[in-house]
């Protein structure tokens, strides 16, 4: 937080989830939208980051201290802020809040949610079409409801495309630590690859980097990135020739749009803003051109989802 633009309104406040700025994942994506908005609208801002072991009280304190100091709007990144945001919104009714990945029922809260299951479905379609062995894999950081949304959509996409295919689903760890274990991600991917799996989609934060690395080491195997377009990730540049596509979630876009609606349009977005395939809030990338050959089939599936012909599940069961 450098010097803020003076006056009553200090700009945007933003509270990251654990991982924070620089996680190469959805926190970073939020940061991108936040930074762009600050630049475009020439406003100040401050961002705070959660840490492991934070309690409700700690999360509430972050939001409340931002609102108290006069930041408006205030954005909470991550579903964990659910309860604390509800409380902060009640305490500071004049501040506009937004929460990413969750829904809080309050007048001054905008909910930015995404249909990750839809983009994951498309990832499943692509995986099924690209797999030669008819075995594909999914690696989740941990078996949380959010990640199960990815897993469920993916599996459905695979099986709808290739009913004979096998989907191997594994979790890195039983808790949140599973998002920061690239070595274990690599081991899991390695195990899958040696069992014949040739496409691996990982929704596992930092652990996904390990899976991508392992996949790059096996000839003919593909990986699918998540959240941001991992083909362009500087940390993964070495392996980008095997990153077939990414199921992206444009947190940056929604954060930017939200800030814009408050700061520039003075007409805050309200209620639940679902960012889906339809409005480009989530999407499957074609960067690198590896799936250009199957683009028609993917686009068809996408259309079916948008049209409601395909109903994508939002959960996963073993």
């Amino acid at each position, binding site marked *: 937080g450098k010097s803020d633009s003076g006056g009553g309104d200090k700009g945007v406040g933003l509270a990251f989830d654990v991982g924070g700025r*620089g996680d190469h994942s959805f926190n970073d994506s939020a940061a991108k939208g936040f930074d762009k908005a600050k630049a475009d609208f020439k406003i100040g801002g401050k961002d705070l980051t959660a840490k492991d072991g934070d309690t409700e009280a700690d999360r509430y304190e972050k939001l409340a201290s931002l609102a108290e100091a006069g930041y408006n709007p205030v954005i909470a990144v991550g579903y964990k802020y659910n309860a604390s945001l509800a409380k902060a919104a009640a305490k500071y009714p004049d501040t506009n809040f937004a929460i990413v990945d969750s829904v809080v029922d309050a007048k001054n809260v905008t909910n930015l949610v995404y249909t990750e299951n839809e983009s994951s479905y498309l990832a499943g379609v692509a995986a099924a079409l690209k797999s030669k062995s008819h075995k594909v894999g999914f690696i989740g950081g941990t*078996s949380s409801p959010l990640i199960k949304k990815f897993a469920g959509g993916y599996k459905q996409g695979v099986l709808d495309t290739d009913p004979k295919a096998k989907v191997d689903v594994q979790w890195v760890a039983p808790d949140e630590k599973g998002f920061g*274990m*690239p070595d274990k991600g*690599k081991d899991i991917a390695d195990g899958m690859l040696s069992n014949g799996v040739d496409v691996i989609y990982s929704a596992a934060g*930092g652990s996904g980097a390990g899976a991508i690395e392992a996949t790059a080491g096996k000839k003919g195997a593909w990986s699918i990135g998540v959240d941001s377009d991992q083909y362009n990730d500087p940390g993964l540049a070495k392996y980008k020739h095997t990153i077939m596509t990414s199921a992206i979630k444009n947190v940056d876009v929604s954060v930017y749009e939200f800030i814009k609606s408050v700061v520039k349009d003075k007409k805050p977005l309200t209620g639940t803003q679902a960012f889906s395939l339809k409005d480009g809030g989530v999407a499957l990338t074609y960067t690198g051109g590896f799936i250009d050959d199957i683009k028609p089939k993917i686009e068809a599936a996408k259309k079916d989802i948008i049209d409601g012909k395909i109903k994508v599940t939002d959960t996963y069961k073993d």
Partner: protein
Amino acid sequence: MSATTVKTATPAVSEKARPRMSFAKGLLLLAGALVLISVVSALVSSGKQPAFYTITSSGQVAAALSMAVPIGLAGLGGLWAERAGVVNIGLEGMMILGTFFGAWAGYQTNPWMGVLAGVLGGAVGGLIHAIATVTFGVDHIISGVAINILALGATTYLAKRWFGPLADEGGSPKQSPSVDDIKDFTVPGLSDWLADIEKHHWFFVSDLAGLIGGLVTNISALTILAIALVVGSYFVLWKTSFGLRLRSCGENPTAAESLGVNVYLYKYAAVVTSGALAGLAGVFLALVRSHIYNEGQTGGRGYIGLAAMLFGNWRPGGLAMGAGLFGYSDALQLRNGGATVHALLLLVAIGLALLALWKLYRKNLVAAGVNAAFAAGLIVWYLASDTVPNDLVSATPYLVTLLVMAFAAQRLRMPKADGKPYRKGQGK
């Protein structure tokens, strides 16, 4: 009393060698396990066979080895310290220092400088522990806990300052940019040949080929170093006068002092070495298992290393076995998930049943009963299900370690003065 003649009494002290888990015995046990796996995998239905094949696959063995190395190195660190009488619960913190400085220097220069820096980082942690425990006589556990907190605090602070601004190279407040690979080795020819044999799933032969194959394919230079360190530690601690002096500080420091051994010096040397080894364990995590420093990367492996050392009864061979067991079961659940862990249930059940028979033969009815009951329970579980639920699979290495500890009753022989405060010139 009616005894008027001396009966021939049993000798008070028998001169037999003490039984130890010798290397040969370990090999024999391993061979037995391989045969068991071969037999069982030949007997189960063909649909279930792949799960058994993965148990001895070369990939599994290689992964197990790489998971075992950091635990083993941390355990070795614990061994050095405790053999000199200093309990080192700060291994976790020293490992963290290893991961951080390893990646930091590795990124700045080259991976080998990273190894050096990580080892030094760990050694500094060891030095702090030595100052606190040896010079100031602070309770070893307190000091260790403090070092764990301090190392975590310092590295997260520095990571934010040093790696945070390196976003373009892939750095972040919680993660370093990636570091180049450390060289790894494959035995030419042999590796391919073994891989070929393994594919055929021949009875026993393929299992053995998988096992050896895993050990000769893509072995990191640091893995080789780690194995050399385990062997070397045994040699140094048990076969040299330096080692004798060092161990004497853990057994009876006052006696050592009375013979002119500078106990403080040896304790310092041991604890600093301990830190260096833990640092190397951290380096291995940062530079071999992954290419980056990552906050929380050690994930409690320091504690598990300590557990491996206790498991191994304060001996290098034993701790290597403990680390191997944990690494193996962790790799197994990670790589292959529920199906293979499910297969493991059957193997463990059979193993327990054999143990029950042995106990029965030794007339230890209670132990036999307990073992048999556990075996029966596992077999029922195996038959009643197709796979182990994915959410439970992650428990495998912890459960296996706990069970092995519980079933392999052992007499712990910790160094006599381990963890006890020692002050110069206060012997009575």
